[in-house]
């Protein structure tokens, strides 16, 4: 049986290519999302300061920073894998990767690792930029890192799935605008779900992005809406499920190898 990680150099090359791809247009892929997150922080942080209930002793502006970081990370991790794959699929240059002796696992890991890389870079960027305005200490760095990596990897996987499924850019944009964006906005970035009516609290618990943000926020404040262990378990399960689906699609060559 062929070793699924037998071409590690090929995998690292593909990972390197994906990273260089987004670094070559860093104004669009790194700077723009950081500036957008800062604008959210300045506008919402100021306007809603006295209107939204957060944890005791915490300013609203400080409360939303982890959520904004996570929202930026997951949106960019998704955008990275999905836009790269759909561009090369529609443009035809994906053939160079498909002709190479790369396994499905190597393909998957290279794309997801690059998505995590972009997610972490924009996350660090938003944190450092926000630090100028709100000095935000980190309560548990390991938890922060763990949720950042897991969430970026999850959305990186979802980006691959969406790009495989989509036949053209419009379908992918619809996936992003009607699924990723609402789920990330309605995941507790701007509020604690305890401030919501009970019905909407219940609905929020079906949103996997909520657990990513809640667990990530715990890493900053040592407080969260649900136990961080549960958030970790749900986020990891979601990642496993999407990874399995992604691997299945790649292995079958669905919409890639006709």
């Amino acid at each position, binding site marked *: 049986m062929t070793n699924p990680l037998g071409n590690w150099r090929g995998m690292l090359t593909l990972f390197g290519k994906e990273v260089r791809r987004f670094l070559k247009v860093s104004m669009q892929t790194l700077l723009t999302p950081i500036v957008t997150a800062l604008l959210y922080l300045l506008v919402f942080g100021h306007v809603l300061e006295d209107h939204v209930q957060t944890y005791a002793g915490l300013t609203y502006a400080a409360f939303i920073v982890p959520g904004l970081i996570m929202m930026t990370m997951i949106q960019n991790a998704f955008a990275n894998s999905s836009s790269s794959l759909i561009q090369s699929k529609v443009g035809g240059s994906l053939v160079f990767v498909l*002709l190479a002796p790369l396994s499905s696992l190597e393909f998957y890991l290279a794309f997801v690792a690059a998505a995590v890389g972009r997610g972490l870079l924009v996350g660090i960027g938003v944190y450092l930029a926000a630090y100028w305005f709100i000095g935000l200490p980190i309560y548990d760095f390991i938890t922060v890192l763990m949720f950042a990596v897991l969430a970026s990897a999850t959305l990186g996987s979802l980006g691959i799935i969406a790009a495989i499924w989509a036949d053209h850019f419009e379908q992918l944009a619809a996936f992003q605008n009607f699924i990723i964006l609402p789920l990330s906005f309605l995941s507790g970035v701007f509020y604690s779900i305890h401030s919501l009516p009970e019905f909407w609290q219940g609905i929020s618990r079906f949103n996997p992005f909520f657990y990513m943000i809640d667990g990530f926020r715990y890493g900053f404040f040592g407080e969260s809406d649900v136990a961080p262990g549960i958030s970790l378990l749900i986020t990891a399960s979601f990642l496993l499920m999407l990874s399995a689906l992604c691997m299945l699609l790649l292995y079958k060559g669905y919409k890639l190898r006709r």
Partner: protein
Amino acid sequence: MIPAVSIENIHKRYGSVHALQGIDFSIAPGEFFGLLGPNGAGKSTLISIMAGLVRADRGHTRILGNDVVRDYRRARSQLGVVPQELVYDAFFSVREVLRLQSGYFGKGRENEAWIDELLVTLNLVDKADTNMHKLSGGMKRRVLIAQALVHKPQVVVLDEPSAGVDTELRKALWEFTRRLHREGHTIVLTTHYLEEAELLCDRIAILDHGKVAALDTKQVLLARHPYRLLSLFVADAGLQLPDSLERLLVTRTDHQITLRLHKLDDQIGGVLDTLRDAGFIIRDLSTQETGLAEVFTQLTSFHTEPSAA
């Protein structure tokens, strides 16, 4: 001897279309093999199956004994494919693209010398650091060839390499392909320029409606159509053609008569004698050998200009 390419009972369906219906042949190492067929014959599908870009419904394809599905790493490492479309990654320069392709095949810095050699051989040195999207169509075609060769494959598949390139580049590509062949590579060529196949290939398979309509050496295929055309320019427009030559007549205008002669049965000397005996004064003549185009038309259901599937 292990065949360079072995295709066994390959079937492929796209919905209700049976694109490939039990294709069976092999290509020996070092052969220059032509794959011809009209639109929709299944050539591109077959090449894509060889390259692992399309999965066959049934049958096996092996590259130098390696199954393209079960042992895909070895099979793909032995195969270089020049795609028909001018596809490229607009983010990178020519050298970057070649380094990436080399890396995908597990090769590192030790392959740099070969990349430099490819840049020189394909006249890409001046463009090495130019972004792909700034290259002309001809230059992009050269890069595609370099990408296909960057991992030093034994078997090289060229899918319509001459499509959309000017005469000068086409001749340069032919010379380069011949050189690869001389160096021991097995070449598989699809083309809709039949003279290209006639000029380059040792053996030719003609596909039609997903089946092999003919598979033989170029000489044997050409011998299937043993005719030549004889065009005569005569002085008198009004003379009656002798009855014995009527069966050979293809076209006649006032001063020009075109006859189709069987290479063995109809000797040109005899035909000219018959015409002179009938009173014709022949001012000029020319002959035209039949080529692969006539064989192609005879063997396939295609009756106009053939093109790639």
